[in-house]
């Protein structure tokens, strides 16, 4: 099947996932609300001291996105499982990786939008002053999101079809994401503090390497996972 055909299938899945999500806005709204709630709770845990809040802002933001994101990944397959739509999906001729890539893009948009909301709220709540190197900060957010969403989309394909999906997905996902979280948190933190030591660049290269590995590996493994 030609690349043109594959691309068309990817687009169809992105369109379908986002349309169904858009129609039932309750899904996105509640996931985003959960992200914001987690941020507020971190605020309580860290106390009202402005400097402590600012130091912990990056970590709190990433954990909020992580916890809320897990719900999004399971939802993405819930749509397929609800009325047995996965079978027709598997019966369309053509490569199965297009299903993964389609869901990956749809989840990237979903989690990306949530990230925007949570970040804006986080900037206000944690009294963050935006540094002059903010474009780099956005790049860190984007790179971290790619790693998170790629592995989340992959593991949810299994977890959502197993018993105890609520606990299995975070259990599988969180330890695997330690490098992403460390790199994204540290890079965000040093960028917020002005990046005197030029550490952010190294962390960003690590994020990029991680993203490449953990987009390609799930892409190759997806066919083995989805068909059984």
């Amino acid at each position: 099947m030609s690349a043109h055909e594959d691309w068309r299938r990817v687009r169809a899945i992105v369109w379908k996932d986002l349309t169904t999500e858009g129609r039932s806005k309750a899904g996105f709204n509640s996931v985003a609300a959960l992200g914001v709630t987690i941020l507020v709770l971190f605020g309580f845990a860290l106390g009202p001291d402005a400097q402590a809040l600012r130091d912990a802002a990056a970590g709190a933001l990433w954990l909020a996105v992580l916890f809320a994101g897990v719900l999004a990944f399971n939802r993405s397959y819930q749509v397929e499982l609800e009325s047995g739509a996965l079978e027709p999906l598997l019966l369309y001729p053509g490569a199965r990786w297009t299903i993964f890539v389609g869901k990956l893009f749809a989840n990237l948009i979903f989690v990306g939008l949530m990230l925007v909301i949570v970040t804006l709220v986080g900037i206000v709540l944690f009294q963050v002053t935006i540094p002059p190197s903010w474009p780099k900060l956005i790049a860190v957010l984007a790179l971290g999101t790619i790693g998170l969403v790629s592995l989340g989309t992959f593991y949810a394909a299994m977890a959502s079809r197993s018993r105890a999906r609520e606990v299995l997905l975070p259990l599988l996902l969180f330890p695997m994401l330690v490098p992403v979280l460390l790199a994204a948190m540290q890079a965000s933190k040093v960028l917020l503090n002005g990046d005197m030591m030029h550490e952010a660049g190294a962390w960003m290269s690590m994020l990029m390497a991680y993203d490449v590995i953990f987009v390609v590996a799930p892409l190759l493994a997806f066919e083995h996972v989805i068909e059984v």
Partner: protein
Amino acid sequence: MTQSVDTNPDLPKPGYWPWYGIFCFLFLIGSQASGLLLSVPDRDMGHLQKIMYVHVPAAWIMSLTFVVVLYYSFRYLWKQQENDDLVAASAAEVGAAFCGLTLVLGMIWGKPTWGVWWTWDARLTSTLVLFLIMVSYLALRAFIDDPHRRAQWSAAVGILGAINVPIVYMSVKWWRTLHQVQSMPSTVDPMYVINLRLNAFAFLFLMIYFIRRRYEAARFERAAELAVQAAALGRR
């Protein structure tokens, strides 16, 4: 055409493995005795330093089990033989045990050295993360009933987990070393190095023995599973 109901597949035979097991434990006793008795106590740490003869080999061999999981997971996806999946699972369990041992010994070492049971030391922390990855692999297996699906999925999870090992290690190392310098004993005593290697081999032999025995047990478990199902359905 007759299809035999396959309730008694050829089960693994012990063969020479019990003798190998005896050899393993004798070797281990020998290498440990050599470490405890023949090496000079460390200048700073004294006899405490001898915990390294278990801690360090356990950590090395634990990393090796990830390679075993990686190899047999790939092999399963390639050849689709259930036995490869069972070897991978056995290796993961043995790996988790060695990983746990590494962690506990690290903590015992940490208490007198740094005065705390836990420190976010780079090696200790990355070992903890690897332990969690092993545990999640085993949890996934526990949550899936269909053997084919379990094998297929855990192969994918095992491969991804093993790929992640060096990345986890590097990220945690960077996270720590950007702030503080490593403090590990820098003994240059040649006896120390020899004993470390000797014990590493002891643990390697032990790992192979454990994986083999766990694999045999897994095969018997599978056979029992099949027999129970056959008996239950046969009565109908």
